[in-house]
Each structure stands twice: as structure tokens, then as C-alpha cells.
């Protein structure tokens, strides 16, 4: 028996230790390795809260270990330090009500300021107008429309670095969420509504983006790549797409809207916004009206094992 108890305590003692240990390796975790100011502010908030949480965990674990070890009913303990009628102490109860309250207040302040900051383009690129990109989810693919550049991409995205991106989020059918963990947190894409999400990349590179909100069979595979490039490279890409990509017709677009998983990436030298904006009231039932029956079909999707992995 006694052996087991010690065993257990050792395990419990390991828990906070392992937390510290794992935290040191955390810089490799996507969310804690942001590549832009939005993700950075969220990381800062997470790390800030983590220290308080770690403090609380250590205090509680220490108290817990102390109580369990000291006051176990071991043979020969007798009635020393045993007070069965002890039932309250106002002073200490006030202390442990007020301290958590203070911690909550301390945490609330940066939370609220960050919340309001996230509704604006990041300050670091305040001198430039944000780049507007309409990100539309459709079962189970992503359309990115650049109205200023008049181009559209499917399932991938190019963005300039050091410039705020103003995503206008909406969906053609089911609810999705645009999530690029290394650039910042997610927001929902909904039909008939438009959400604004500001993100920005400070380093060029290729980042994983995906739908964060479950929306049916093809959910797992509703991913995309974000290519963050220097302003010039981005402009080159835009120009190249404008010149080389075909034009998207409404007919082809309607076909693309049909529920399916699409492996390939596409680019077009115009946008679907010309005939429908799913974020408006008029555009909300565009896809449903055309494809109502197609949502009934099951795709029987399985994991297609590929040598180099699906996400490359």
C-alpha cells in the first residue's frame, strides 16, 4: 500500500515538472511560433497567462502534496495534528477569494485590449492600406478573391509580407473557419454574413491554412497553403496570374461550388464577386439553390496515403 502511495506522489510531482520541460520545447509548436503581429499578440497573451496558470498549478500541487503526505492516516499517528471540527477561517477564505479575483482582473486587461486591437489592422504596417481578400469557403474548398487585383485563387493564397491583409470571410454553404495558425487565430465563415479578419505575415514563407470548423465529410481535407512573399515578388505573382490564368465563368464557378474535395489548385484572372458575393443577403442561398441534391451524396472519403504527405 505504502509503496503505491509514494509511487503516485512521484507521478503527481512529475506533472508540473513535465509542464516546464515541455514548455521549453514549445517554441516549435505552431501557435507559439508566429510569423506575424497578430499571431505574436496572441502568443504573448497565451504566454502571459501561462505564467499565472503555472503559478496557480504549482501552489495547488504543493499544498496538495503537503496535505496528502502530512495528514495521511499512517500507523501510530494518533491524534496529533488532528482537528475534526475545524470548519472555517474567515481570514484565509477571504485571501483565497481575493487573490483569484485579482488574477482574473490582471488577465482581463490585456485580453480586452488585444480583442479591440484585433478588430483593427496591425499597427506595424499602419502606413499601408490593408490588402482586401475575400475568403469564401465552399464544401470543401477555399476561394480567395482579390478584388483590387481582379484575380481569384482556389485552395492557395499569395500575400505580401509586412502589409495587413483584410480577409472578408463568408461561406457559400456550411459554416467554416479560416485558420492560419502561424499568422493568427480563426474566425467563422458563414453564408449571408461577412466577417472581417486581419492577419499579417512579417516573414516570407509558406504556411498551412485550413478550415477550423467541422463542416461535414470533406472537412479534414479543406486545407490551403499561404505563400507569403516580399511585396515585389507578390506583385510579380499578381501580374503573372493576371496574364496567364484563364477567366472564371459563372458556369465553371457553379460547378466548382458543388460539394467535393479538390486536390488541385486553380487561379483565375477575374473574381466571382462579379455575379455573387456570398456574404450578402442576396448571395446567401446561391450554392444551396443550385446544388441542394448534391449535399445528400456521400463521398466515402478515405485517407489517401501519399508518399510525400498530403499537406505539401
Amino acid at each position: 500500500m505504502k509503496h503505491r502511495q509514494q509511487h503516485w506522489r512521484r507521478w503527481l510531482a512529475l506533472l508540473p515538472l513535465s509542464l516546464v520541460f515541455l514548455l521549453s520545447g514549445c517554441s516549435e509548436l505552431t501557435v507559439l511560433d508566429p510569423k506575424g503581429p497578430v499571431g505574436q499578440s496572441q502568443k504573448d497573451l497565451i504566454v502571459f497567462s501561462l505564467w499565472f496558470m503555472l503559478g496557480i498549478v504549482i501552489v495547488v500541487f504543493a499544498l496538495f502534496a503537503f496535505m496528502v503526505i502530512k495528514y495521511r492516516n499512517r500507523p501510530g499517528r494518533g491524534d496529533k495534528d488532528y482537528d475534526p471540527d475545524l470548519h472555517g477561517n474567515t481570514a484565509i477564505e477571504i485571501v483565497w477569494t481575493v487573490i483569484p479575483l485579482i488574477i482574473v482582473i490582471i488577465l482581463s486587461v490585456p485580453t480586452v485590449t488585444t480583442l479591440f486591437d484585433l478588430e483593427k489592422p496591425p499597427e506595424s504596417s499602419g502606413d499601408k492600406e490593408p490588402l482586401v481578400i475575400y475568403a469564401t469557403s465552399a464544401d470543401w474548398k477555399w476561394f480567395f478573391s482579390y478584388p483590387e487585383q481582379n484575380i481569384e485563387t482556389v485552395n492557395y493564397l499569395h500575400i505580401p509580407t509586412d502589409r495587413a491583409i483584410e480577409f472578408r470571410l463568408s461561406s457559400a454553404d456550411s459554416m467554416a473557419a479560416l485558420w492560419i495558425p502561424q499568422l493568427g487565430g480563426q474566425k467563422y465563415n458563414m453564408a449571408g454574413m461577412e466577417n472581417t479578419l486581419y492577419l499579417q505575415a512579417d516573414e516570407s514563407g509558406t504556411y498551412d491554412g485550413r478550415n477550423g470548423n467541422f463542416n461535414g465529410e470533406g472537412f479534414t481535407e479543406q486545407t490551403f497553403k499561404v505563400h507569403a512573399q516580399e511585396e515585389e515578388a507578390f506583385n510579380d505573382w499578381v501580374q503573372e496570374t493576371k496574364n496567364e490564368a484563364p477567366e472564371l465563368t459563372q458556369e465553371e464557378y457553379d460547378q466548382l461550388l458543388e460539394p467535393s474535395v479538390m486536390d488541385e489548385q486553380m487561379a483565375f484572372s477575374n473574381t466571382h464577386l462579379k455575379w455573387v458575393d456570398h456574404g450578402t443577403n442576396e448571395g446567401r442561398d446561391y450554392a444551396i439553390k443550385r446544388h441542394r441534391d448534391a449535399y445528400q451524396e456521400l463521398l466515402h472519403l478515405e485517407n489517401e496515403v501519399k508518399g510525400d504527405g498530403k499537406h505539401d
Partner: protein
Amino acid sequence: MAEHSKRFPVQHIIGFVLSIVLTVLAAWAALGSDLPVKWIIAGIMTLAVIQVGIQLFMFMHMTERESGGGHVPWNMMFHGFVLAAIIVAGSLFTMSFGFTHDHDDGGNHQQEEQQEEHSGH
């Protein structure tokens, strides 16, 4: 409550007359008066709450001693109405965002509505 020993249900009749008067008043305020819409809504909702009070206290014997229920019925009704307020106001508070449900003028109207909501709570 001495009322059940009485022959003539005075309290019920007062309650009935009051509720009819309040109903007519609300209908008049809504349709016959020239008050601003916000005032009308606030006014008739107040009248409704008074009427509910009449039902609860004058008809439903909510505070009757003999029931043995103590303050429980009162308490539950009170919390029920608090919850009702949370549910209705809370839903309006959280759900009036980013939607474009009007037909003619997209953005403006919706923003106004949002501000109205915020100032309301």
C-alpha cells in the same frame, strides 16, 4: 388572504378592469399616439409587465401563506423572468452583428442597429 371567504370577488374584478384598461391603453399608445417608436416600445412593454403583475398577484395567489410553499413560487417566478430577460436581451446583444438582412441599403442600416443594441445594454 381573506378573499376566499368573501362572497363578492372584489380583487378579481379590480384586476379584470385594470387589465382591460391597460390593454386598451397599450393598443392606443401603439397605434393611436404620435410618440416616437422607442418610447412606444418602452411604454407598452412596461404596461405588459404591470399586467403580468396583476395576473400573478391578483389572480394566481402567488403569495398565499397557506400553500406552505413559502417564498418558493415568488422566487422561481422572479428568477424565471430574470432568465427570460437574459435570454431575450442576451440573444439580441450577441446576435446583432455582421448580418445583412435588410433589402435596400446594405451597410448603414445594420451599423445603426448594432449601435442601438449596444446603447440599449
